């Protein structure tokens, strides 16, 4: 088999590389936050919504869906986790555990 044929077949086997990646967020009830559910591939936003509906909402329990192009997300770099997140951990006064949450307050 010559190189071109191999390349062609490899490409055919990896359609993943052709469609953009989307991140999916689902909301379970009115007022609840949209939470990250996972990701999927789709050619455009409408198809991403439809695929999200089928992949993440078909078992029910979802009242709203967001899809976001994965390329639109700016992420922190795992390699810098130390300097980025640690400074907050050793300053107890920054933490809210000294406050009592009034009874009857929900969703906190």
């Amino acid at each position, binding site marked *: 088999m010559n190189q071109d044929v191999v390349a062609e077949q490899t490409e055919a086997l990896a359609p993943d590389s052709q469609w953009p990646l989307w991140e999916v967020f689902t909301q379970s009830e009115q007022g609840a936050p949209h939470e990250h559910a996972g990701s999927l*591939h789709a050619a455009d936003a409408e198809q991403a919504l439809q*695929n999200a509906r089928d992949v993440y909402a078909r078992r029910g329990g979802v009242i709203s869906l967001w899809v976001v192009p994965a390329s639109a997300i700016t992420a922190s770099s795992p390699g810098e986790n130390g300097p980025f997140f640690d400074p907050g951990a050793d300053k107890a006064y920054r933490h809210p555990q000294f406050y009592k949450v009034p009874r009857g307050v929900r969703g906190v």
Partner: protein
Amino acid sequence: MTSRSVVPAPRDSPNVLFEYLLRLGDDRLVLGHRLSEWCGHGPILEEDIATSNVALDLLGQATMFLRLAGQLEGKGRDEDALAYFREVVEFRNCQLVELPKGDFAFTIARQFLFDVHAVVLLDALSRGTHVQLAAIAAKSLKEAKYHVRHSGEWMLKLGDGTEESHRRLQRAVDDLWRFTPEIFAADDVDRAMLEAGIAPDLAAVKAQWEALVREVTERATLTLPDDVPRAASARGGRTGAHTEHLGHMLAEMQIIARSHPGATW
């Protein structure tokens, strides 16, 4: 099988509603099975799940229509008996739904042509006079509205996509078009349903269907073939005259149930 497909139509069936429900149920049972053949073979994982989902919806709708048919028939046949223990000439689906699944373009074009028809028909049935049938139609309509959104989007993507996707979809539409008149060919059963206020006038359904199909195919840059005149005497799936493909499909679909009658899991 060809020789058997000339069994006379049960024109004077004692239970016209039973006949009508078989048509609704069999369309969905057969199309659902055809679509399920993509399971594990979809062009991409997400689409594999989507088509399987639609197939399951159609199977669920078939279950409801056939269950009601069995109850009205009153011979103790439930939906499983009707699905798995009838012969090919007893099936009442239109020929459109029994054709092999073809390539993805063919599958999408067929789903689209069927889905548009389903939305228009179910909407009318849900306002019909038969309470149980109307309830099933209302439940199915919700699903059908999503199905047409799915297949309609694909029509636009493939039709107005690459040169190859356009060519394949146009060929699919060309191949499928001659099977569409059968869906709207009203016979005595349809006329009885119309008179009873249960089902709509198929001519009106066809007009709505065609307007929607034309709108989407134009946007998809496709050309609809000229209508093929259909002889009034033409027989089709509604009276048990099927293409050679249905028998093969049923053999595969029915073999487990027939090999192990009454099995449960």
